[in-house]
Every structure is written in C-alpha cells, then in structure tokens.
C-alpha cells in the first residue's frame, strides 16, 4: 500500500488524512501535541452557524483514530526528510509520555492525585492542569501524558503517586523517546497557525491590564467545557462582563506588525459577541473595525443579524489605545470615522482580535522539508496550484498557507489529499 505523511492533526490534517485513507492509501498522521484536534478543539462554537465545535470535530477525530488506514503518531515531531516525490524517507521523534499506550484507559485517576499543578496550555493559562494530564477531555487518543519538565519523579526522583494508584499499571517512568523511519510517497503539511503576541502592541496594554484579553482566551472562557464553565467572568474580579469591546486588527494591517489581513477576525469577533448575548441578555458589544470583512457563505447575514438582534454595535474606527479606569475597566480610545473625532468607550472586558501568524517554528519545519515560505512566513504555494509547495511531492493545506476559515481549510485539505494521492500513487 502506498503511504503518505500528514504533518499536523488539526481539522485540516484530519480531513486530509481521512480523504487519503478512504482512497486506499496508508496515512501517517504526526501531531505534536498529545492529542489531535488542533485549534478547533479550543473553540466553543464556530461561525456562521454557531454549532458546537467539539460536536462536529469529535466524530472526525474518532474516525481518524479508528480508520484501518490511518496510523496516529501523537506527541511526535518530524525531524528529517530525505528523498524525493514518490520516495521520501522521514525520521519522526516520538516523545516519551511515560505512559504505556497499550494499557492506559484514560480513566484519569492519576491526574486527580498528582500534586504538581501548572498552567493549562489548552485553556491558555486560564486554569491549571497536573503534571500528568489529558490534553483535553475529548482527547484522541485518550491516553495520559506526563510532562517531564514538571513531574517531580522524573525531575527529582520523588513522588511517583500516579504509578502507585494507576489501576492498569500503565505508568512507565523508564519509557524512552523513540525514533521512527517512515517511507512515504508524499507529504501533506497542515501545521496551522499561532496567534500574534499582543504584548507587541504595547498601546493595548495586554500585559498590564487584567481585563484586556485575547480572542483565544475569550473562546476558552465562553466555552461550556472551559475554565469558567462558559460564564464570561472578568479576570480582575470574577464579575460577569456585560460591556464587551472587540478590538479588530490587533497586529494586522499594520506596517509595524503584520501588514496583512487575518481574514477571520471580523466574523469571529461577531460570533463571540453573539455567544455572549446568548449567555446573558444584558450583554452589549462594540466591535471596533477598520473594514468589516465577511464574504463567506452566510457571513454577511450573520453579521447583520448580530447587529439587529444581538446587541452588537459595529463601530467604524481603529483603536488607537486602551486605557484603564479605577475600576479596572478598559477604556477604548478610537477615532470615530463618522465624526472624525477621537472617542472613548468604557467596557468591562476588552478582547483583542490578534493576528493569525505562522507557527513560531515554521522556518525550522520549512528547512527540514526543503520548502519555501512566502514573504509573510507562511508556506508558499504555487500560482494556480494552491495545494502545491515549492517542492514536488509536498503539499500544504489550512492555515499554514495563510489565515483561513474552517470551510476553506477543509476544502484545501481535500485538495491536498487529491494532489498527495496522485503524487504517492505515481
């Protein structure tokens, strides 16, 4: 059977893997985190239909795990690629979880007893996890992972409580990293994106003001399975946030930061405003924008409805600065385009729609794969061949190519599968 490597287990990687597997190819899906799911697993609801992200992602994740033609390599990284289209040899590092994957049932007893607590990356630091943890409740595979940096036993030889109480005897502190050699005919890059560090946009005072948060933090707060159970509570005092200010283009369309448009923020901020109102009818939202962009299927109607029915005010005015009053309420300073005068709007919570940027290690991966990045740091794709990278045999899809919404990422993933299948089958 011909084999293909998919790097990245977010929605794009998952879709590409499924399409390839269904065409009779064997797929190695390599994912850096302990579970597949990617960014979509961190979202509560997705626009424009506001359906629950987990509900639509989970079945695909489970399909991936169960598909006879898909081999999941989670908690793993691609280290080296040699060869050419039709015959690549890839070296993958499979990091030690210190948990026996065959025995662990994901019951979670160990995590309940582990004494080490640290910020939970999945919840963007808004809650805590243990040193032995499940990436998120619907993780696939549902296998615990021990973080070697923070595990007392691995660092200092003390504790080992998890091993004592694990009913399946799955803890294995002796486990080693492993190297795998994969022979594949084609490679699909689906490594997704990072968010721009809002601290770069100093005038928004993200670091200093507790009630200035990022869109991703907001997503975790509003999420039913997030750190506050879906209640929008202000970080400073835990009070419900009723006046919301969404600051568009944080770091986007800006010569000093990222000069491009991040495509999805106008619509995702709209969604966030709608979700807040659905939770609490007293919420009122202000979305401060430069151009209000949304041309995907159903997006305009979604934004019109938000304005009409969900107490969302679209304010045409770029935010110059965010200040703070004595009650720690963010005060948004913007130029009102209608009157050309500077205005201020006090809100309970300011949400920064930060740019979608290439993964911080994109240059390293590009180097390993021998593919070019464009001037923005995203994976370069050939003109009129949107899935093809600069290297024959390697294709890409999803946000590693540039900011894209979910329907685009999914369509691109199928496109990448089409090209990869052709390349692998020769």
């Amino acid at each position, binding site marked *: 059977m011909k084999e293909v490597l998919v790097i990245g287990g977010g929605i794009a990687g998952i879709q590409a893997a499924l399409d390839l597997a269904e065409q009779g190819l064997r797929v190695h899906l390599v994912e850096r985190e302990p579970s597949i799911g990617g960014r979509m697993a961190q979202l509560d609801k997705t626009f424009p239909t*506001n359906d*629950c992200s987990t*509900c639509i992602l*989970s079945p695909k994740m489970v399909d991936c795990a169960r598909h006879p033609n898909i081999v999941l390599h989670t908690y793993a990284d691609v280290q080296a690629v040699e060869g050419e289209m039709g015959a690549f040899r890839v070296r993958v590092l499979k990091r030690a979880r210190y948990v026996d994957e065959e025995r662990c049932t994901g019951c979670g007893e160990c995590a309940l007893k582990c004494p080490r607590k640290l910020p939970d990356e999945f919840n963007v630091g808004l809650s805590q996890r243990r040193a032995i943890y499940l990436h998120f*409740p619907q993780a696939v595979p549902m296998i615990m992972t021990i973080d070697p940096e923070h595990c007392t036993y691995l660092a200092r030889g003390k504790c080992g409580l998890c091993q004592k109480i694990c009913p399946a005897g799955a803890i294995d502190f002796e486990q080693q990293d492993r190297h795998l050699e994969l022979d594949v005919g084609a490679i699909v890059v689906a490594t997704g994106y990072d968010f721009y560090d809002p601290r770069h946009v100093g005038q928004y005072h993200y670091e200093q003001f507790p009630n200035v948060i990022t869109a991703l933090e907001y997503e975790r707060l509003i999420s039913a399975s997030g750190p506050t*159970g879906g209640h929008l509570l202000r970080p400073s005092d835990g009070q419900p946030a009723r006046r919301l200010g969404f600051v568009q283009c944080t770091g986007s369309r800006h010569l000093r930061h990222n000069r491009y448009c991040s495509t999805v923020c106008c619509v995702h901020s709209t969604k966030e405003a709608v979700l807040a109102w659905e939770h609490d009818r007293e919420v009122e939202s202000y979305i401060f924008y430069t151009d209000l962009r949304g041309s995907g299927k159903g997006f305009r109607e979604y934004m019109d409805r938000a304005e009409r029915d969900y107490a969302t005010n679209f304010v045409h005015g770029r935010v110059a600065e965010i200040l703070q009053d004595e009650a720690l309420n963010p005060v948004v300073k913007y130029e009102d385009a209608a009157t050309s005068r500077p205005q201020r709007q006090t809100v309970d919570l300011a949400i920064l729609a930060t740019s979608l940027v290439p993964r911080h290690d994109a240059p390293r991966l590009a180097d390993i794969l021998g593919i070019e990045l464009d001037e923005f740091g995203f994976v370069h794709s050939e003109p009129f061949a949107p899935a093809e990278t600069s290297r024959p045999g390697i294709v890409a899809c999803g946000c590693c190519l540039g900011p894209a919404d979910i329907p685009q990422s999914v369509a691109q993933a199928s496109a990448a599968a089409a090209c990869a299948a052709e390349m692998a089958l020769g």
Partner: protein
Amino acid sequence: MHNGPKIVAFACNWCSYAGADLAGVSRIQYPPSTRVIRVMCSGRVSPMFILEAFRSGADGVLVTGCHPGDCHYISGNQKAERNVEMAHSLIRLLGIEPRRLRLAWISAGEGARFAQVIREFTEEVRELGANPLLGSITSQEEGVTVS
C-alpha cells in the same frame, strides 16, 4: 415514587448522548433519576415510545437531541420537535401533566448543561408526584419477559 422520580430519557448518539458522557468525564454530579436510551437521532423517538414510557410507569420522559441546525441527519431534531408536540397533546388526553414530558437540545460539548437539565427536570417531576396512571393500566406482553 420509590427512590425518587424515574425518568426515561432518549439521547441521540451524536449530540446529547455525547454531552451526557462529557458530564461523566468531567465528574459533574446529578441525580440518578434517568434511564437513558440511546438512539441514533432524536427524530427516531416516536410518540409511541413516549406513550409507552408513561404507560410503563415513568414519572417523566425527556427527549434530547442536537441544537437546531446541528443535526447529524440534517433535520431529525425538527422531526423530534413535531413528534414531542404530538405526544404532548396525546398525554394531556390521558390525564398526564404535559410538564412530565420535556424536549431539550444538548450538544456534545455541553456536559454541564446535560447535568443541569437532569437536575431541573428531576425536581420538576418530583414536585408533580408519581405518574398518575400507576395502577390503572396493566401491561401484558408476550415474547419479552420483564422481571
């Protein structure tokens, strides 16, 4: 009501059953009043099933499915809505309080909501008391013995 109200709940495989599982994974506690029957789609729940549940002595019946627009089978939950509506009219004729039948939309990510719905509905049914039909209809079955 022996040990508290007994509720027959129908949950759809893709959304509400998954939400119920999530409540479990999250260890969210709720009263042990419900007996869940998994169906592929809330649209499978016929008014006949609802009537049978009351006839068998259930104090409450809960039909759960995907939020509008999310149905894995496109419009199954809309069908569920109509079926429950019909069942509401029918149970009224039988002298069963309509509040004993409830329809709730619960998504796969709403573990807390599942628990909340169970809590609220259990309380509501507890206030209404035992199924008014109890003792007035006997069941006769062949082919299936129930112990």
